[in-house]
């Protein structure tokens, strides 16, 4: 039980007073970020990343990942109390959560949401603890063809597993690769797509893209929808908590199923959002009273349990491919990966060999962070909910200013603030036209390394694409990627055939 020993050592790292303090700050900031419109897990972490440049990497990742856990918890608060999903993965939580709140059962819904989030995260962390050393050990044998095949699988999964139109997913992804190519070619040093502009020499920083695409665009969208925040009281009584806890074991199958869906979707980069919808859909289909799901008369607690468990499980397990392979499973994991590079750590299997303190300190901190987060949200829901009563005309410009500060601090460049605004407008249009943003961000992050792996693999084979089928491992990865990629096209064709006959 090597993992248990490593984990105990990890707790030793995570439990230092400094790290626990950072964890607390991270959680509270994270919940705030989750509650506020325009700030989410990905861009919240991106904005704060520059502040951690001077911290030890382990402390930095503990704080930033805690922000992520906080944001996952925070999303549920606004969904249930205000019918406003603070985060995209909490959309499914509004279906039953908000009707419950309107029937004066907000306390139950919130308790159920937080508890399920906690359980989802806990199961995913167990998976992370025991599966990641195995995957990392496996990945140590990876060469460029295998690495490229994993990247290919990641990107094909976006096409095959999301509900967005496949060609829009591809266009969005290719735009990301194109942006990643701008600047100096990492292999030969040739300048690409710079057109003599000095600002373009260093290429596009994905942190800027994240702040614009997820932050600015979100504020534009919130204003367009003309949100007015009206909502119930978020106070949770201890009686309600205990009563809900007695009720929750009834939904253990839903919890387990949703955790499994979440872990799977997090590792294969489907992400937390589709995982939450899928878990909700499954819970509804398996239920004895599917009609009550999302109804205003008899909303179901189970309809809160399923999406929250899955979202939190997916959010947590998205770290597995990020740590073991260097391929993030979600935009927020991508930002954390960017952090690793900035702190001078090379993500991938060698982390588990060379940076044991870092990896296991992080994993231990996930256990602790979720316990702390659970207690914090349960105790302070009304305070967090009160933030939404601050008028939007104060929140919006403040967040815009914070985004601008965040964009500037990435590399102390005013040009980056202009880029942030442009990315914001692009993100807004893309969201409305159903061009997914996650593949765009991941392509910017992984573009250079995917290309490098591809070129090295091609170099070794003398330009023969057969290298991606040259052995069982790389062959099955590539074949799986292609199968996932063509799936939406086949299923479309099949529906068309069926409707024709």
């Amino acid at each position, binding site marked *: 039980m090597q993992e248990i020993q490593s984990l105990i050592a990890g707790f030793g790292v995570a439990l230092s007073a400094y790290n626990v303090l950072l964890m607390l700050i991270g959680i509270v900031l994270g919940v705030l970020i989750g509650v506020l419109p325009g700030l989410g897990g990905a861009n919240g972490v991106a904005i704060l990343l520059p502040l951690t440049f001077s911290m030890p990497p382990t402390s930095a990742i503990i704080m930033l990942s805690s922000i992520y856990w906080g944001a996952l918890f925070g999303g549920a608060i606004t969904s249930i109390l205000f019918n406003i999903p603070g985060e995209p993965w909490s959309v499914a939580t509004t279906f039953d959560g908000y009707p419950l709140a309107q029937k004066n059962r907000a306390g139950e819904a919130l308790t159920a949401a937080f508890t399920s989030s906690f359980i989802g995260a806990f199961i995913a962390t167990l998976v992370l603890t025991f599966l990641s050393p195995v995957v990392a050990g496996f990945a140590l044998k990876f060469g460029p063809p295998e690495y490229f095949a994993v990247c290919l699988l990641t990107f094909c999964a976006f096409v095959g597993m999301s509900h967005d139109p496949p060609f829009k997913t591809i266009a969005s992804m290719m735009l990301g690769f194109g942006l990643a190519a701008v600047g100096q070619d990492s292999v030969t040093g040739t300048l690409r797509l710079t057109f003599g502009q000095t600002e373009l020499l260093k290429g596009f920083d994905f942190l800027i893209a994240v702040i614009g695409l997820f932050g600015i665009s979100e504020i534009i969208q919130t204003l367009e929808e003309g949100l007015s925040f009206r909502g119930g009281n978020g106070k949770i009584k201890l009686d309600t908590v205990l009563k809900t806890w007695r009720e929750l074991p009834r939904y253990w199958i839903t919890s387990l199923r949703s955790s499994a869906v979440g872990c799977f979707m997090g590792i294969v980069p489907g992400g937390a959002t589709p995982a939450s919808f899928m878990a909700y859909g499954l819970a509804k289909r398996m239920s004895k009273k599917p009609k009550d799901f999302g109804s205003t008369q008899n909303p179901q607690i189970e309809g809160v349990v399923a999406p929250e468990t899955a979202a939190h499980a997916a959010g947590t397990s998205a770290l597995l491919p990020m740590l073991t392979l260097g391929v993030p499973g979600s935009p927020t994991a991508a930002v954390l990966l960017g952090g690793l590079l900035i702190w001078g750590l090379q993500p991938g299997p060698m982390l588990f060999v060379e940076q044991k303190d870092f990896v296991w300190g992080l994993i231990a901190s996930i256990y602790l962070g979720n316990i702390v987060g659970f207690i914090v949200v349960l105790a302070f829901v009304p305070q967090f909910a009160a933030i939404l009563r601050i008028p939007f*005309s*104060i929140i919006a410009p403040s967040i*815009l200013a914070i985004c601008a500060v965040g964009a500037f601090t990435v590399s102390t460049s005013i040009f980056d*603030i202009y880029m942030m605004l442009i990315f914001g407008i692009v993100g807004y249009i893309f969201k409305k036209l159903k061009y997914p943003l996650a593949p765009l961000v991941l392509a910017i992050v992984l573009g250079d390394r995917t290309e490098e792996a*591809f070129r090295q693999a091609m170099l070794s084979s003398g330009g023969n694409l057969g290298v991606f089928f040259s052995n069982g491992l790389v062959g099955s990865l590539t074949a799986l990627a292609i199968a996932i990629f063509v799936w939406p096209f086949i299923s479309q064709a099949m529906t068309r055939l069926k409707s024709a006959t």
Partner: protein
Amino acid sequence: MSSHDQGEATDDRSAASVRSLETVTAAVLFALGVVLIADSLRIGAGWTDEGPQSGYFPFYIGIFLCISSLVNFVRAIRDPETATEAFLTRHQASMVMSLLLPTTIFVVAIGFIGIYVASALLIAWFMHQLGKFPWSHTAPIAISIPAVLFCLFELWFKMPLPKGPLEQLLGVV
């Protein structure tokens, strides 16, 4: 998912159709694809003795971008719904512009008057124009938020942000 504004009569006529946005987006992405292909060919997209050239990978990215944009373009034109469906109603468009214009001015102004003064002005504008707050409420908030940012970044994290003439006058640069 959204609760719309109440009270004021809103202009729900379309300001722009989904089709126009879809086609313009696809066309722009197609053009970017062409740029990628052209630039890749310029620096060489083939093989040399040292292996693949710098344009080798982006060349194919450009091709995929062009193909997928073409499909999206054709789909937008062939789908009859996109012509009538509004991307934005006029009311929404005016809301979006009321945010985008001051934000653009804010972003441009940062280079000239510094981020703190620009933020204060942005917050003041939003609160007074959109929030209809009296100046007695607006001023303290508009000044205190940049002040907090100043303390946080300049003093605590020692991370200098863009500053302008006001900071020079106060001698904090």
